[in-house]
């Protein structure tokens, strides 16, 4: 696994502010890429640690997302459930360069669970 391989998945503006898009990768779990109100970009596996809800469909507020199924709040930077809930969604390394979103190629090797 190469340490410095990044995959371009599009422009920051391709994701609505306070919204998310998904990345579908053959043989791995879907990735959700989030853009916050202050234009920070985060990526998580698109699966809530609670009941597997698609986090990409939740309401993004601050640097958190509320899961669309049962309103668990997940911190985008760490994948940690917040408040009284506990659990963690794997994060995916992501960076922005010249307005383009790059995700860590290693994420494409994540194994389905």
């Amino acid at each position, binding site marked *: 696994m190469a340490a410095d391989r990044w995959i371009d998945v599009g422009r920051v503006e391709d*994701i609505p502010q306070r919204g998310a898009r998904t*990345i579908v990768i053959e043989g791995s779990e879907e990735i959700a890429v989030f853009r916050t109100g202050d234009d920070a970009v985060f990526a998580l596996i698109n699966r809530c640690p609670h009941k597997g809800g698609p986090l990409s469909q939740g309401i993004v507020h601050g640097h958190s997302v509320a899961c669309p199924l049962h309103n668990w709040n997940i911190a985008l*930077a760490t994948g940690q459930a917040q408040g009284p809930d506990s659990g963690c969604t794997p994060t995916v390394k992501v960076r922005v360069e010249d307005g383009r979103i790059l995700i860590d190629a290693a994420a494409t090797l994540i194994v389905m669970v």
Partner: protein
Amino acid sequence: MDGFTRTMERPAVVPLESREHLVVIGNGMAGCRAVEELLARDAGRYRVTIFGAEPHVNYNRIMLSPVLAGEKTFDQIVINDRAWYDDNAIDLIVSDPVEAIDRIGKTVTARSGRVVGYDRLLIATGSDPVIIPVPGHTLDGVISFRDMTDVDRMIAAADAGGDAVVIGGGLLGLEAAHGLSLRGMKVTVIHLMSTLMERQLDEAAGWLLKSALEARGQTILTGGDTAEIVGETCVEGVRLKDGRLIPASLVVMAVGIRPSVRLAREAGLAVGRGIHVDDHMVTSDPAVLAVGECVEHAGQVYGLVAPLWDMCRALADGLTGRPTGYRGSVTSTKLKVSGIDVFSAGDFSGGDGAQDIVLRDASRGVYKRVVVRENRIVGAVLYGDTGDGGWYFDLMKKAEDVSAVRDMLIFGQAFALGGGPGDPNAAVAALSDDAEICGCNGVSKGKVVAAITGGATTLDAVRSGCKASASCGSCTGLVESLLTVTLGDDYDGERAVKTMCKCTSFGHDDVRREIVAQAMRSIPEVMQRLHWSTPDGCSSCRPALNYYLLCALPGEYVDDQQSRFVNERMHANIQKDGTYSVVPRMWGGVTNPRELRAIADVVEKYDAPLVKVTGGQRLDIFGIKKDDLPAVWADLNAAGMVSGHAYGKSLRTVKTCVGSDWCRFGTQDSTGLGIQTERMTWGSWMPHKFKIAVSGCPRNCAEATIKDFGVICVDSGYELHVGGNGGIKVRVTDLLCKVATEAEALHYCAAFIQLYREEARYLERTAPWIERVGLEAIKARIVDDAESRDALAARFHHSQSFSQDDPWAARANGAESEQHQPLSLMETA
């Protein structure tokens, strides 16, 4: 608005140019607070010039941590904006620090070369971060945590990714670590002492804090001594004296602060640890004053915000010829570290004659320790539950004899004073006048009470009068208790208002009223004007605000899709496996072969595992994938069907029976009236889902008496019923009235829906709404008052003229395709 800038009457207004000139060095919390206090006493006495080293207006430095953590924006921590300087004719010079003071010529010289003369000079330079001179401390990537520039650099470093080391496990260091950790960095805290925050916490509380932070993913190295910071030009890591190397691309040095005294020392003023001042904040030169963290008063220097308020009061009293004098401050620390409440005050080192009273509740993560000497509290440390901190601190400051309550002291004020648990009014009444109520704005109990007795008899009036509870709102309960205690029977009572959510101290009705009164037009505007405590709300308040604005501004407000719950954004119902179910509209529950064929085709074509009849007389197609939704809608549209809004806080369905056309008991055309009703009401957004039914006779086969609006046809006309619910709590409708014609039934229906749309709280069904406001109040607006009824119905029809377009059709034609299509991959080097 602002209690501190309200000007006092003067016999004659002195023109600006002939006033004494007060020059303030430092545009921070101390300098500006001093000017605020001065203006409040005598706005026309001085001409004021303020020098600031930073490029910003006056902001709340203690709120930098929430900015770093992404919980606040810079705009939200501004204390005084440009308008304040302009309104008070203050000359603000930013980004130009003063570099020299000439006390003989009475001038200051700034870095740019600018020379400004003064009659009185106020030094409020604050403090400088301590940088330990280990090898490598000048490398790129080594920063302190003191101002907005530091925060910007930390945010940039976090965005670039990588690991961070924070040197210093005091308050500032832990806040930096918390913020960086929230921003995704792997953070290690290196602390020289064996206990975190050892100046505020004892060993037990420090250990609890360390464990809690470690559970949150931070690495805490206590007893860690930094040997050097390694790297070529940029930071690459930190080496400890025991040889360990911790890789890092960012090092935050947060080991302490020291009074910023260079300017004063070079000007020849008397300086010890800080700039020496007397009780009136005057330095060794009578024309020069100093205030804040840069001063030393009676041998003490302070690094907290509370003493600063006291100093500024004494300073302003002195400058306006009514000297009162500063007597030093006893300080306490109440703060949140990483979301954990911590309080400490006084001396908790123990020692001779000191007795500890300790309570530990491991399961709740609570630790309390009160230190008593000769029956008087001398110190307290609270961890996890700091509610009684103010009381202990008050007892400590007054040196009260606590022997009578000693046995119950540790359980807190409510128990110890016999007020019983949950008597907040008694607790507030017992606070002394100088107890701090509002930490954000430094407002004491005495000031709040003065505002109340001065005529501020509502929470809003107190907020605008003295600023208490106007910022973060966490003291709203205390202010309400003070209103109750101060006004007694004259207070309308604590508003039974629950706040909308944790982002605001306002209730639903307050927010709605203000949206209309202030003609607000967008969610960010509401959040800004009503002091939201989060940058962009949460999943509770955003959908509510979006609805309130949509209802207030039909046809003008642009719906914010990102503030919609998933179902309303996707126009389908999300299921537990992340697929969606789709319900096409069948007007009045009536369908035909063409629609049924189209539905059957969709079920087969998209391999839907289940198709089911709903309780509202519709067909529900399950298991549709997000990506397939637009194609499914296109197929259903082609057969003439539109969105059934089975997913929305909106009109759901109008359920009917077959009525007089077929049924031998039917009295009227209930199916026809149902279809007309659905044609009139579909597409309307509501506070919550809304169901209608029309039954053709009192046998009520359409179950109209458990609907939000139900019609029961009788021989002589139509009975209109409202507020029914068949959900968790079954509620039978109330009879609103009886009307003679279909047209009237439709008219009353429109008026009722509009009243519900305008006055119910978001996510409040008609049943609890009617129980809250009373059926009579609704009858008064709809049945008894024809003018009101007509106006409501007219507003409903106006709103409907903008909302009756099929959301499926637009999306089937490609609108908002990003909601359905994943991003595509493109590999780069």
